[in-house]
Each structure stands twice: as C-alpha cells, then as structure tokens.
C-alpha cells in the first residue's frame, strides 16, 4: 500500500512538531525515520496509523486520506502494549477477534503465529512472566497475524538490550520478507535503520524536517554493516555524533532549516 505525505504539518498549540513534510513511500518499501528524540517522528507514525490527525496537509494510504485507524495499517509500540490480563495466545488472537473472526479460529491462528516467532510452548504465559524480548516477539506476532498492508513500528526494540535487539531485528526482517507489507520504522538506532530499511530519512530537531535521505535499495543485508560505513558516519554526523577522531574540527549540531 502506497503512502503519500503532502505538506503534512502538525502542531500542538503553539508547538510546531512537523513542518510541511512531503514524501511518498512506495508499496512494499521499507523506510526508516531517524532523528533526535522528541522530533515528531512518532507523531508522523501515529498519523499514518490514524491515531492522530494532521493539522495541515494530508496523509494518504493507497490514495485515500487517513481518517481513522484500520487493521490494514497496524502499529507496533515500544513496549507495554500487550495486555497484562491476557495470555500471549489471547493477546495475539485479539487482533483477529476484533475483526469478528470466531474465537476458536483466532486462537488456532494465534498459536501458529506464536510458533512462527519461536514462542511455541509459551502460549499460556502472561506477559509479565516472560522476558522483554519475548514480549516484543509476541507483539510482532500480534501485528502480523492481521496481515497488514502497512506495518508501522514505533521504536519497537528500544527497551531491549543490544543482543536481544539484533535477534529481534532478524526475526522482523524475516517476517517482512515473507509478508512484504509497506514498512515505516521509527528508530534511534542507526544500525537498525541501515539493517532493515531500503531508505532512511534523517530528521532535524523539532519542528521535524528531513535533513537528508539515503536510498540503500532493497538488497540482502546482514548485521555486518561495514559496506554501509560511510552512510553510517554521515547519518551519525547529521545527528550530531562525531565519528572522525579529529579534535581540530567539531561537527556542528544540525539545526532546523537544513535540508538536503
């Protein structure tokens, strides 16, 4: 499903969060949004999900303006989005039950999806009984079970330790390859963006504007990102992290208004 942003603006009172964001995300494309925290990336994602409305401009999914949430555009949250009073199986099945599928079928499919994310045997566990990594595997199963055309990920692995995060990134990549939804990923982790995305948009501080766009293309990738070292340095520099060990030159912290 193609996503179009036309002069999307969002403000909360006097606070401008996003200013005239223009972009088109092709059907099946995987796009990562990186930028400083609080810059409005998540707001952008919530607007695609239909949870928030743009103050100006328009967000379109397959040509239709996004007005409210729909199961074909699903969102994976950072954490705590599983329901603590439901088992992992019930949590995953809920996505289908909300679409009025019979409970029995939904449960059976939920079990299949849990085993696809390697959670077979944990169906009856409650979220607080399993690790953070397992909770996010479950959250992925819950997102994919509804066969979304657009998958929105809001710092999905932000709360996990580095090693678990890399494992989950591989799980996610595999699922994306098999299901091929259009993906928009918001992340702080530059390596995560490079590993998963076909295209990376680097945002400025609030109000969010695109500083630079990197097109990697849909190519096979591993966690060995040495081939992308130059892009990685450039992205980090845009985010204000100096990667060149040269005390003489300090890379300036990017300011608003700089676009490439």
């Amino acid at each position, binding site marked *: 499903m193609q996503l179009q942003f036309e002069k999307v603006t969002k403000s909360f009172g006097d606070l401008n969060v996003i200013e005239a964001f223009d972009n088109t995300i092709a059907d099946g494309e995987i796009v990562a949004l990186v930028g400083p925290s609080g810059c409005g990336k998540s707001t952008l994602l*919530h607007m695609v*999900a*239909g*949870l928030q409305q743009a103050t100006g401009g328009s967000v379109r999914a397959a040509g239709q303006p996004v007005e409210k*949430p*729909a*199961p074909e*555009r*699903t*969102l994976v*949250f950072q954490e*705590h*989005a599983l*329901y*603590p*009073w*439901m088992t992992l199986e019930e949590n995953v099945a*809920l*996505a289908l*039950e*909300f*679409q009025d599928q019979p409970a029995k079928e939904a449960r059976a499919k939920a079990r299949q999806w849990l085993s696809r994310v390697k959670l077979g045997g944990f169906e009856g566990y*409650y979220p*607080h*009984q399993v690790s953070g990594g397992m909770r996010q595997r479950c959250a992925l199963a*819950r997102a994919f079970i*509804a066969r979304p055309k657009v998958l929105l990920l809001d710092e999905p692995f932000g709360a996990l330790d580095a090693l678990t995060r890399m494992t989950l990134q591989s799980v996610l990549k595999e699922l994306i390859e098999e299901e091929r939804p259009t993906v928009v990923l918001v992340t702080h982790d530059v390596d995560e963006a490079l590993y998963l995305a076909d295209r990376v948009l680097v945002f400025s501080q609030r109000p969010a504007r695109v500083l630079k766009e990197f097109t990697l293309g849909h190519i096979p990738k591993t966690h060995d990102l040495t081939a992308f070292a130059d892009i990685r340095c450039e992205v980090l520099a845009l985010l204000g992290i100096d990667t060149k060990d040269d005390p003489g030159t300090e890379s300036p912290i990017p300011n608003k208004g700089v676009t490439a």
Partner: protein
Amino acid sequence: MSTSTTTGVASKRAYVLAIAFILFFWQVAAWFLPSFLMPDVHVALGRLWQELGSIEFYAGLGNSMGRLGAGYGAALVAGVVLGLVGGTLSAVRSPLKAAIIILQSIPSIAWVPLFLILMGFGNMPIIVVVAVGAFFPTALSVMNATESVERVHIDAARVMGASRLQMLKRIYFPAVTPELITGAQLAFGNAWRALISAEMIVGFSAGLGKSLAYSGEIADMTGVMTNILVIAVLAAVIDQVLLERVKHRLLRYQYL
C-alpha cells in the same frame, strides 16, 4: 508466589490475635458489669448455638442476605456502567465525579425517611438504601481507573480495529478490574452498615438489624451481643473469604 502465601498466613495470624483481643475485652467488661448489662462471652455463644438451630434465625438471615444481594448487586452493576461511561466521556466526567463526591458524604441511613415515604413500608426502601451506600465507592473507583487506563492499551486496540463495545468489554473492563475490586470491597462495608441500620429503623419483617433492635427494646443484652456477634462474623466472612476469593479468581494473572 511465596510472598502472597506468607502474607496470607501472617494476616490469618493477625485475625486470630485480633479476635482473641476483642473477646478478651468483652469478657473483662462482663466481669465488671452485672450480667443483665453485659453477658459473658460463653453465654452469648450458647445463645448463638441455640439460634443456629432455630428456623426463625435462618428466615431473618435469608431476608437480610436477599436485601443485601439485591442492593449491593444493583449498585455494582450501576457503578460499573456509570463509572465506565463517566471515565470514557470526558464531557460528563468532572461534573459526575463532583456530584458523586457531594452525594457520597450523605450517610446512607439519612435517605431512609425519604425512601420509606416514597416507596412505602417494605423491602424496597432497605434495598435502595443499601444500593445507595454501595454505589458511590464503586462508581468512583471505576471512573478513576477508567481515566488512567494506559494510553498505549487503548491505542493498540484502536489500531487492531476494536469497536466501541469491544473496547469496553475487552480493554476497559479488565483494565479497571483491580480498582473495581478494591472499590467493591469498600462498597461492601458501606452496604453492610446501611443494611443493618436501615433494618433497625424500618423494622419490616425479620432480619439481622430488626432482631438486634428488638433485643434492645426488650433489654435482652444477651440477644444484643449475640446479634452483634453474628453481624461482625458475617461481614468478616463475606469480605475476607468470599470477596477475597473472587479477587484472586478475577486477578489470577497477577498472582502467577
């Protein structure tokens, strides 16, 4: 979980200790006062044993429990519905909450004359007074809990395409259940006090409150103490055994 079983044992021990303490002070008072003013503990227990064998006792108990069940049950249902509605509709939330806080400060028993005249002499005024006493803490706890349901839990359900009804049933209701149970236990205390006092005043057909009031009128102090004993024991059993059990059942996931 081991901590919950140890606290369970500790609270049981605390209860045994507290009961022994209360009975001891009663007995001390009985030693100092003449027996027509304060009966010995064993005399009251003997009367209780005798009562437990009489049909009248069970008829009165049945009446009281019926009124409690009807009033408390209605209050729980109304409290949950209004609490959920009030908690989700921000337009009515603040005025509704203010109204509840004002009305809550009126002792339930103060409504008796009004309801007695409105509804006539019978079960109804007692049931309504019980319901009024139980309704406010239930509605208030559900409303507060509904307001503080985690944003991400609501957003996740919206993204999955939940309808308004599904949202209430599958998300809001289970999310507020812990607070609802706390509110329901508070409400039970109110309902129980309202029941006994209303029965004492209204005195319509047999019941625990009427039996207590009657014993007082004929200066049967053994009867008075026996009735108080029954009232205390029943309240403790319902609250600590019945409601606690319901709580563990409904919040099973928290105790794993």
